[in-house]
């Protein structure tokens, strides 16, 4: 069994698939703040609902974004924990590419990058770009795109459909493990950030906290 987690946006997704990629279950829901509280319980429910056990895990697929730093951190920490605890492989799959693959009618995938910017992956391209809201609205406002609802509303994407990338992540992870059973390095795997951490340059005093 492959478990896949996609938490790059406020629309969270989980999927279970057979080792060969055949879908077993998919769950999607919206949560802006409670990824840390909700992801693991929902995952355990899905496993139980499919009559499976976590111990049957063969590998973990995890969306690497780019997107919500919080969501990606929660997903990545859970995925690392599951993979390490069971000594199974982990595979990182770019989230926006998975969203596009799941929704063939769309031309681009859009994820939030702060208040006034978005990560945009245009179909046919390999690299998501950091783009400001005005450009996103101008270029993609009337086009069919994948984007979480809150972002579509905020950025004026009138023909957006919500992301559903988890099953694709599971399938891609299964394919990857066929080709390379070791998968990614569980120590080093990290989200695709695209942005330097805020604060590395021109850091305003107020943003720094000591704990």
């Amino acid at each position: 069994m492959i478990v896949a987690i996609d938490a790059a946006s406020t629309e969270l997704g989980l999927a279970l698939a057979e080792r060969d990629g055949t879908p077993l279950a998919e769950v999607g829901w919206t949560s802006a703040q409670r990824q840390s509280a909700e992801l693991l319980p929902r995952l355990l429910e899905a496993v139980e609902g499919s009559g499976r056990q976590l111990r049957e895990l063969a590998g973990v697929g995890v969306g690497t974004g780019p997107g919500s730093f919080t969501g990606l951190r929660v997903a990545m920490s859970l995925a690392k924990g599951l993979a390490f605890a069971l000594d199974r492989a982990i595979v990182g799959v770019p989230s926006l590419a998975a969203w596009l693959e799941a929704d063939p009618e769309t031309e681009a995938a859009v994820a939030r990058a702060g208040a006034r910017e978005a990560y945009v992956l245009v179909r046919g391209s390999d690299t998501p770009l950091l783009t400001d809201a005005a450009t996103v609205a101008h270029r993609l406002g009337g086009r069919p795109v994948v984007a979480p609802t809150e972002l579509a509303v905020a950025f004026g994407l009138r023909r957006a459909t919500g992301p559903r990338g988890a099953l694709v992540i599971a399938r891609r992870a299964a394919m990857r493990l066929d080709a390379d059973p070791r998968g990614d390095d569980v120590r080093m795997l990290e989200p695709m950030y695209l942005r330097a951490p805020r604060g590395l340059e021109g850091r305003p005093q107020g943003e720094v906290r000591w704990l």
Partner: protein
Amino acid sequence: MSGPRILAIESSCDETGVAVVVGGRRIEANQVATQVALHAATGGIVPEIAARQQLRWIIPMLEAALETSGADWGALDAVAVTYGPGLIGSLLVGVNLAKALAVVHDLPLVGVNHIEGHIYANWLTDAPADEPLPPEPEFPLLCLVVSGGHTQLVLMHDHGRYTLLGQTVDDAAGEAFDKVGRLLDLPYPGGPAISEAAVGAIPATRFPRARTDGPYDFSFSGLKTAVGREVAGYRERGEPIPVDGIAAAFEEAVVDALASKTVVAAREHGVAAVALGGGVAANRVLRATLAERLAADGLPLLVPPPAWCTDNGAMIGAAAGFRFAAGDRADASLEAIPNLALPWLEAP
């Protein structure tokens, strides 16, 4: 073996710690990755940098801790993790990793308050398993928790029973050290740099001690401002800044504020001992001054070794030992709580 063997994870700020602690006291492994060098470049902790590093270091530290202890999953009785207070991005990493480990191996999960961890560092020992445990701290115990993020004076009546006597109303003591370190152009972190500069120096001035509403509260932002004015004065006059002398005067003012309130509180509450915790507990002048003033009252000062004062997994394992015995359990929905407080009792 005496008591549960707990795998403990600490990721509340910029240290990534994983430890194995038995019975809340005996350290079998205590691995810490620190980001001090990284943050030296920015002069302080940048939350997003800290969180990214947590995700990078957590598995290597976990591997190292399990290897050092020699414990496999079957030999563990629980997984413990800091769930607050701290930086949200950093906390999330440890909390979610710990939850995954616990559910996979069907181990109880214990959520630990970071401040409680600092206090329980006083219960830790690295004595080998065939040696008897050193005696436990006695209650009532007065705990001064001082670090870059916290400055609290806590009266501990018994395991898990605390009264908050006072705390900083603005900057934490360690934060004041870092800020003054920058004013004096000293390297980050400011605590060790200021202490080093102050060794043997004659204080260049006497900085005012802050007045606070609560008798056991602390305030350090006025002191920082006073240092800034002093430094600016030398600059305006075109005189060289007596860095060592100002560092000594600043350290003296911080230590005096911490020590005098702690001693008064110890007397008022008739405690059995005073315990230090947190990164600033490594400050030699603080340790020496407190020990000397408490000795006049015949009171012992407990100070963990520096490695257990700064953030680490073992202190979380120590607090978890008590929490585990008391039946505290968290589940898969455990959240990170950045402003988590201890469950305070009413003031006595």
